[in-house]
């Protein structure tokens, strides 16, 4: 049952929001202890919201576009009075005194908040194994990771704990878990969705985005959350989201470029597994069959993305995470002086991956190293923007696999950070450039687990990603993907 049909049924009175919620909560009760998708199930809040929706429907008042739809929120979104932890000990139990703008918009739309989902601590990771509260398991195979950092949100949707979810994407943290869990996940144009209340990791990269079982639902969710926010200086003025309008436009005559450096072509990054590439190839066929002009295209600097990202993101993070010092909120480990207290608190409160990135970022910004690392990475960003800009003169959208492999087993990539980081090689470039991208399930790998393909579009062309995604989804459902 899609989110849109739930919304339609609730609005018409055919079903009550409370009964929809109860159904979802029953599934949570059945499998949550196995999957650990949530840091917190917010049943009381959800029930109050559902009851309010039903009361409004009964009274004949207009309800919001998502009224009664159960929705999960990644636990790096500020929810007033509700613990928001970023899956870190340092924020365990912290109740924000304010709501993220996106949270307010969703509440206004009538969504029902099922709970706060698990993530890699402070959104740093690609498997949700870095959570301080235990990993989330992939609903399709519990011996496998759900991807990360928004693993909890992806799992919640894949397991039907919620019909929709919000995640955040800094280097692929929505798209990759969507691919691993066989659902749709989308990263908006940077600035399309407000970051006010998004607990920052990489400020010039972070965006909230939608998870859903299908492209149309994701589009509806996108349209609800996107749009200018005066509380976010980096949010785009005059942005009117219209993803839903794009759903039926098809791809006739559309120019699709397959980025060879990210899709196993000449000069490609390594590690792209053959079954993933095979699915990508089938996706190309599907688009061609639907009338698109598909060609290989070169974006040379795309291969530099990983290196640039693993300098820019940690650098910003090292500064963003300085505020966790035990003074005003969160964990405090007492000591004789404030300085020692800061150190003791952070040492106890942060996990290894967070510490690693803080160290990396601090180093990259430190005296003597700024030019060689951070300064250079920002220039690589410029190069990438230019390369993509010139490619988009001749192509409308680009196609790549979402991730190099299907969901991997727990622990497989934990020994060496680099093996985990390469998960993001296909998604990272669009975080650096700020371009939108969507992951749509297309076929399965040799292990029977889902493969995701990624559609990228120029900045502000979020609608195009849904447009092409819808065609791919239709083809996959019609048996065009194996």
């Amino acid at each position, binding site marked *: 049952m899609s989110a849109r049909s739930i919304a339609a049924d609730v609005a018409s009175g055919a079903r009550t929001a409370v009964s929809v919620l109860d159904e979802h909560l029953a599934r949570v009760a059945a499998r949550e202890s196995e999957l650990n998708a949530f840091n917190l199930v917010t049943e009381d809040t959800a029930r109050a919201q559902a009851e309010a929706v039903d009361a409004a429907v009964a009274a004949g008042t207009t309800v919001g576009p998502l009224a009664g739809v159960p929705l999960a929120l990644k636990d790096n979104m500020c929810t007033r009075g509700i613990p928001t932890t970023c899956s870190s000990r340092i924020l365990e139990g912290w109740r924000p005194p*304010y709501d993220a703008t996106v949270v307010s918009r969703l509440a206004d739309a009538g969504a029902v908040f099922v709970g706060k989902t698990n993530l890699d601590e402070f959104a740093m990771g690609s498997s949700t194994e870095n959570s301080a509260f235990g990993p989330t398991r992939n609903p399709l195979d519990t011996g496998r990771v759900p991807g990360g950092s928004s693993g909890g949100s992806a799992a919640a949707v894949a397991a039907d704990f919620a019909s929709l979810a919000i995640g955040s994407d800094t280097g692929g943290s929505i798209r990759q878990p969507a691919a691993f869990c066989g659902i749709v996940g989308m990263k908006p144009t940077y600035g399309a969705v407000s970051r006010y209340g998004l607990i920052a990791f990489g400020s010039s990269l972070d965006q909230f985005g939608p998870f859903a079982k299908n492209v149309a639902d994701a589009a509806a969710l996108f349209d609800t959350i996107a749009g200018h926010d005066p509380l976010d200086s980096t949010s785009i003025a005059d942005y009117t989201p219209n993803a839903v309008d794009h759903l039926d436009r098809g791809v006739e005559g559309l120019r699709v470029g397959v980025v060879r450096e990210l899709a196993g072509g000449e000069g490609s990054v390594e590690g792209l597994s053959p079954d993933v590439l095979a699915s990508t190839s089938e996706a190309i066929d599907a688009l061609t069959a639907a009338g698109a002009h598909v060609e290989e295209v070169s974006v040379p600097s795309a291969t530099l993305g990983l290196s*640039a990202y693993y300098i820019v993101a940690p650098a910003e993070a090292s500064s963003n995470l300085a505020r966790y010092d035990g003074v005003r909120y969160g964990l405090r480990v007492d000591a004789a002086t404030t300085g020692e*207290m800061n150190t003791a608190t952070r040492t106890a409160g942060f996990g290894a991956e967070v510490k690693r990135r803080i160290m990396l970022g601090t180093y990259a910004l430190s005296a003597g190293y700024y030019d060689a690392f951070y300064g*250079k990475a920002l220039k690589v960003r410029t190069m990438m923007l230019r390369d993509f800009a010139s490619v988009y003169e001749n192509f409308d959208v680009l196609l790549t696999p979402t991730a190099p492999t299907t969901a991997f087993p727990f622990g497989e990539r934990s020994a060496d950070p680099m093996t985990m980081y390469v998960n993001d090689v296909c998604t990272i470039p669009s975080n650096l450039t700020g371009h939108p991208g969507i992951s749509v399930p297309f076929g399965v790998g040799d292990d029977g687990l889902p493969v995701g393909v990624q559609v990228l579009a120029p900045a502000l062309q979020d609608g195009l990603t849904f447009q092409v995604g819808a065609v791919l989804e239709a083809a996959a459902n019609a048996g065009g993907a194996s």
Partner: protein
Amino acid sequence: MSERITRDEVTHVARLARLDLSDSEIDEFAHQLSDILDHAADIEALDVGDIEPTSHPLPMVNVFRADERRPSLDRDEVLAVAPAEQDGQFRVPPVLGEEQ
């Protein structure tokens, strides 16, 4: 093993970041950080001389708000989550060192 990042540098960076690392952690981080930065050798080798850095994916300028009051937070809600408070203020152990 000659690492790109030495133990001393790791210790120095940890201090800047207010992190306390054990001996084995220092070694581990020295190795891992060196490894990650080695992988960044591809951009290190690049000649990017004339290129301007981009801090922001989207070119925006001049975003302002009017000089108008908005409600502040209720102090009780603010201090309710404070690890320690006294007389309406956040209480911390003695602070050594000058403000900048």
